[in-house]
């Protein structure tokens, strides 16, 4: 077992060697521009792209013509949201999203607000899921787009996508989802789920960084987005720019591997995650964040009360994890996602996200459990809050100095 152990697979995943192998020829002898129509170099590159497009389409149950390759999920989110707004703004200017979305979605919506869009940011319940009745109540005749993420990047909760898309469609709006954390991890089928647009990325599913895709529905209804990058008219005019052929080939291969191995892998990962979470949540004053029933198989987000997340990560130097606490500014803002669940700031500051992946082993999980326990105990020995809690002092009654 090599240290440190990587348990931050929601941030990015390592490239699968099989994906790398598929990509390599497209860096060297198959280097052609996929848009070169007049010679074999171009045809070979185009073949690689076409094949990848089919591999991607097969994973999410769409046709190859519905895939627009982008530089990643952030660009796909931007293209989907801004592109729909620009294309359909004569029909309405209202967009509905949620407070726990990724910044790529939230900031694209904020950008549109400056251009005249009205955006509703749905609050989530304490378990991280949106309230369908609130969504229904928020729909207006002006609503052109509902965009709600599939699986959350911090806590892993899976939104009721089918129900959400049904509500959107009932009111004549399109439904988009940022499925960056879900595609390749759990079954996602754009037809069964009623998805009109979907953003996702290769590097969250053992593919390379710098490539992703936007699914854009072509039938029932035919959806169009206004291009956000103009140029040579690639990707049916929706996203210009020379295709990243090796990256696209890598995305395709990554999708194929996920499709073939998903069932078994999801079972293996959820068993390991449950082992980790079970052991750590048995510790005194530790809390699992988010709904544990509707959840991605590989994520656990746990708050260890009375210790601060960043300090804790420093103690867990043999584990690469992520914290909801960012002690990097005077304002010390904890995770907005955890705060949206109604977590108090101190519990949000005390959270650690464990993201398991394809290369995580049981031995590593056993080590992570012991290492985390030791770090939490060590920091609690250092924590004045833990001492006060143990003495039975009610911390909420203390007048903390203005800070």
């Amino acid at each position, binding site marked *: 077992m090599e240290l440190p152990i990587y348990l931050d697979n929601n941030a990015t995943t390592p490239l699968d060697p099989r994906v790398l192998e598929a990509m390599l020829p497209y860096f060297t002898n198959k280097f052609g521009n996929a848009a070169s129509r007049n010679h074999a170099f171009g045809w070979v590159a185009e073949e690689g792209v076409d094949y990848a497009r089919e591999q991607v389409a097969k994973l999410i149950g769409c046709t190859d013509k519905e895939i627009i390759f982008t530089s990643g999920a952030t660009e796909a989110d931007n293209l989907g949201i801004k592109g729909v707004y620009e294309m359909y703004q004569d029909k309405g200017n209202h967009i509905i999203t949620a407070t726990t979305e990724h910044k790529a979605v939230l900031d694209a919506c904020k950008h549109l607000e400056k251009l005249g869009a009205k955006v509703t940011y749905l609050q989530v319940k304490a378990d991280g899921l949106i309230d369908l009745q609130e969504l229904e109540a928020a729909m207006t005749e002006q609503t052109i787009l509902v965009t709600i993420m599939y699986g959350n990047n911090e806590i892993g909760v899976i939104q009721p996508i089918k129900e959400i898309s049904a509500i959107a469609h009932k009111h004549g709006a399109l439904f988009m989802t940022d499925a960056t954390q879900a595609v390749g991890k759990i079954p996602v089928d754009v037809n069964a789920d009623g998805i009109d647009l979907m953003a996702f990325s290769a590097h969250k599913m053992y593919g390379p960084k710098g490539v992703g895709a936007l699914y854009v529905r072509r039938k029932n209804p035919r959806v169009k987005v206004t291009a956000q990058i103009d140029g040579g008219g690639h990707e049916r005019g929706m996203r210009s720019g020379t295709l990243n052929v090796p990256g696209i080939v890598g995305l395709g291969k990554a999708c194929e591997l996920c499709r073939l191995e998903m069932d078994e892998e999801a079972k293996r990962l959820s068993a390991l995650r449950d082992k980790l979470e079970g052991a750590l949540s048995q510790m005194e004053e530790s809390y699992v964040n988010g709904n544990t029933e509707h959840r991605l198989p590989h994520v656990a987000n746990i708050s260890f009360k*009375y*210790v*601060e997340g*960043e*300090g804790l990560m*420093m*103690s867990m130097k043999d584990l690469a994890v992520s914290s909801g*606490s960012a*002690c*990097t*500014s*005077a304002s*010390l803002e*904890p995770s907005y996602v955890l705060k949206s669940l109604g977590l*108090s*700031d*101190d519990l949000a*500051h005390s959270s650690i996200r464990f993201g398991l992946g394809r290369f995580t082993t049981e031995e590593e999980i056993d080590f992570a459990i012991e290492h985390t326990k030791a770090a939490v105990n060590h920091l609690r*020995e*250092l*924590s*004045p*809050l*833990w*001492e006060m809690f143990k003495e039975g002092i009610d*911390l909420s009654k*203390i007048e*903390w*100095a*203005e*800070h």
Partner: protein
Amino acid sequence: MAYSEKVMEHYTNPRNVGTLNKDNKNVGTGLVGAPECGDVMRLQIEVDDNNVITDAKFKTFGCGSAIASSSLATEWLKGKTVDEALAIDNMDIVEELALPPVKIHCSVLAEDAIKSAINDYRVKNGMEPIAMPKSHH
């Protein structure tokens, strides 16, 4: 962001972790920060009849830099007179630990904790509290 070696050293081997009896007249306790801000420091000093700090203890809830700042502060306090302790400036801590700009507030909190502990001691012993520095936050 990488931590400096000195921060790591204090963080890994924190000095003077613990608790003094806050009810003793010769013990001053400073509790600064707030849980919702992600850092709370408790710093305590024990002062002898000659106004010399004979012992100092801390406990801190916070990031590595906050823990290192308070650990360093207790190390510096021991053996100093109360007046000398008042002269410790947060920038001394910044320099010693090579704290980056985003972590300067940790040193400010440590300076606040020192002054707050001294004030607690002064008030307990019938002296006027000194003016607390303006919070840098």
